[in-house]
């Protein structure tokens, strides 16, 4: 769909191109361009998330260029080369080859872990710095690649921190919640999260009384929810993707399965405004430990407003991490003062960013992981997603135990 804005941008681009043809020397002298590769799943199963990432990077690059580009390089502008990896590893490989050929100074993307395994390996081969946005699988940074950088928390870090938050909450609020049911999809993400939780929950005095795996494509989860009911759980922890996640909530409401809290780890729905739009009031009181912004950051309201204006979409953490990744690269380019890939890599490795829109400082350990990264705990309250823990970022107090379904209708 061509929006007016995009149309104007195209016209402006054509004008610039025509200008470049007319006065090539003048233009080149004024502002050089730095080619940055971006690989995202713009089609295929992950198209929605991939496009969010693309928009986040676009927004950041537009901001960077509007503010005068890379000052250390004479105001050079970032030029994005966006390639669709179609959610497929073989295509993801070919996008990396094209970045290498085109001479991209660094690569951003690729949203999903399965794709990141492939793109980081290619980046390592070609010695192209690769700043990841969302991909959380621990294995990506455990390979010790020198050209891979992940600013956000890994899957393991997310699960560990969320369990810590839950322990902190239980102590502070003196909650008597003990019996946990884990419901998870039987793929990579759900299963490994459930494994980690099963190990960690006893540490905060909770016991896993049942694990319910389900297929991500299950059309109905009635039986699974009946099992939750029979288990008399205090807390239900789903780790699954969006469709199953909203199905679980709907089915629990339908069958009036009341529990003390529903809390997910990197939940497919918990921290998505789409979820609130889809299930309405049923989304209320859902807790989720997930990527989020620092709500106390002075610039965050402006950035979110700018995004919503540009793309007519509510906030989503996928674009936020992608947006942040572009700024991490910008910072490294400023410090490197060169477009040499190895110099940019060196600069990235020495990143020390504080006061970013993510609620943690950004630096990288020798494996390229940001050791300080962490999720926040959010709760849906009256149709809004609010940070409820830890205290330093909390916008409001959590409501636990959550009201019964009968009291909400």
């Amino acid at each position, binding site marked *: 769909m061509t929006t007016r804005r995009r149309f104007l941008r195209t016209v402006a681009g054509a004008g610039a191109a025509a200008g470049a043809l007319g006065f090539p020397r003048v233009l080149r002298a004024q502002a050089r361009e730095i080619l940055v590769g971006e690989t995202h799943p*713009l089609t295929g199963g992950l198209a929605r998330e991939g496009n969010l990432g693309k928009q986040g990077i676009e927004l950041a690059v537009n901001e960077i260029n509007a503010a005068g580009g890379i000052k250390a390089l004479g105001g050079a502008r970032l030029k994005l080369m966006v390639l669709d990896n179609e959610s497929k590893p073989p295509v993801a490989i070919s996008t990396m080859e094209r970045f290498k050929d085109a001479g991209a100074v660094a690569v951003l993307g690729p949203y999903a872990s399965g794709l990141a395994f492939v793109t980081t390996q290619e980046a390592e081969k070609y010695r192209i710095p690769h700043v990841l946005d969302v991909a959380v699988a621990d294995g990506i940074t455990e*390979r010790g690649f020198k050209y891979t950088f992940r600013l956000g928390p890994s899957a393991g870090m997310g699960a560990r921190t969320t369990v810590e938050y839950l322990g902190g909450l239980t102590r502070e609020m003196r909650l008597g919640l003990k019996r946990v049911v884990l419901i998870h999809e039987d793929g990579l*993400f759900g299963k490994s999260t459930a494994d980690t939780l099963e190990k960690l929950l006893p540490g905060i005095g909770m016991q896993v009384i049942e694990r319910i795996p389900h297929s991500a494509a299950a059309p109905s989860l009635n039986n699974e929810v009946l099992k939750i009911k029979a288990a008399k759980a205090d807390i239900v922890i789903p780790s699954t993707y969006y469709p199953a996640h909203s199905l679980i909530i709907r089915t629990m409401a339908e069958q009036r399965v009341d529990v003390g809290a529903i809390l997910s780890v990197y939940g497919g729905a918990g921290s998505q405004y789409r979820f609130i739009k889809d299930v309405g009031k049923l989304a209320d009181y859902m807790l989720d430990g997930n990527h989020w912004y620092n709500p106390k950051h002075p610039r965050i309201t402006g950035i979110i407003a700018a995004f919503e204006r540009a793309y007519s979409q509510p906030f989503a953490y996928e674009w936020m991490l992608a947006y942040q990744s572009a700024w991490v690269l910008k910072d490294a380019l400023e410090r490197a003062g060169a477009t040499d890939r190895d110099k940019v890599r060196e600069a990235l490795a020495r990143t020390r960013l504080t006061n970013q829109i993510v609620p943690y400082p950004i630096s990288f350990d020798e494996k390229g992981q940001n050791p300080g990264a962490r999720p926040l705990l959010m709760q849906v309250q009256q149709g809004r997603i609010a940070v409820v823990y830890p205290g330093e970022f909390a916008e409001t107090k959590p409501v636990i135990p959550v009201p019964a379904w009968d009291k909400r209708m």
Partner: protein
Amino acid sequence: MRRTAAGLGLLVAAAAAPLLVRSEYVIGTLTLMCFFAFVGQGWNILGGYAGQFSFGHALFFGIGAYTSSLCFLKAGLTPWVGMWLGAAAAVLVGLVTGHLSFRYGLRGAYFALVMLAVAEIFRVAATNWDYVGGSFGILVPLQGHAPRLFQFGDKRHFYYVILAMLLAVTWGVARLERSRLGYQMIAIRENEAAADALGIDPYRVKLAAMALSAAITALGGAFYAQYFSYVDPTIGFGPGNSIEILLRPIIGGAGTLWGPLLGAVLLGLLGESTRGLVRSYAGLHLMLYGVILMGAVVFLPRGVMGALRSLGGGAGERARA
């Protein structure tokens, strides 16, 4: 004579390509083309020559990829050896599946479904079996440039490996086509009852086709695992992969020697050119690709090779005789 000269010319061009072209992207695309031609040729033996339409060749692909990677990961065995163990395992599974299907005379859609189902069983099993990495799959540990371990720092080496594999298998299939077994397979494809009446044992011939097909596809899977150094249950055993494997021989012309190669080249070029043509609208190139694919299936029911043959009239047939 002309045929041999053309073949030799093509071979020289293929071998020289990485020396002349500096683009990683072109090398990568050529590598994938050769790879798909290779596994397509594997499918072609069972699905093309023997006429047993398999919808689950990811089964053998996954076994090859998993076996060679696991042997490397758990026992440090070089994939150069592991790939043959993978082929052996795939042959074993192929024989069991083949026995169950052919013994009870499953044909057409039923055989296709059985293959699909067995591949799904392996996918679910691999997802839930932690020893093989569960749903996480397997990350092949990278050792940098280690030819001994089937790992290369430079893509060109991978290209030469798959090119050699493709040449070997094409030569093998060319021999098979003129062999007693090959004729028996074609006879069964054309009319199983008549072949049976002539004294051919369809059960044994089909099993032989299954074994050969399984072994080649598994070798392809082992190559994939080394090239991408990552395999998970969906990549290895998923139905999407089964479709990728059979697409090229079907488009190129099933049951012909050049079908899978032609299909791989055409689909490779088509995929890359549609991608390049319409970059600004995400997904449009996939639609275009799909439309052209549908057109190919509707208008070239016997693949591109079939169309070429009928164009060339009897000439091609006479040359073959």
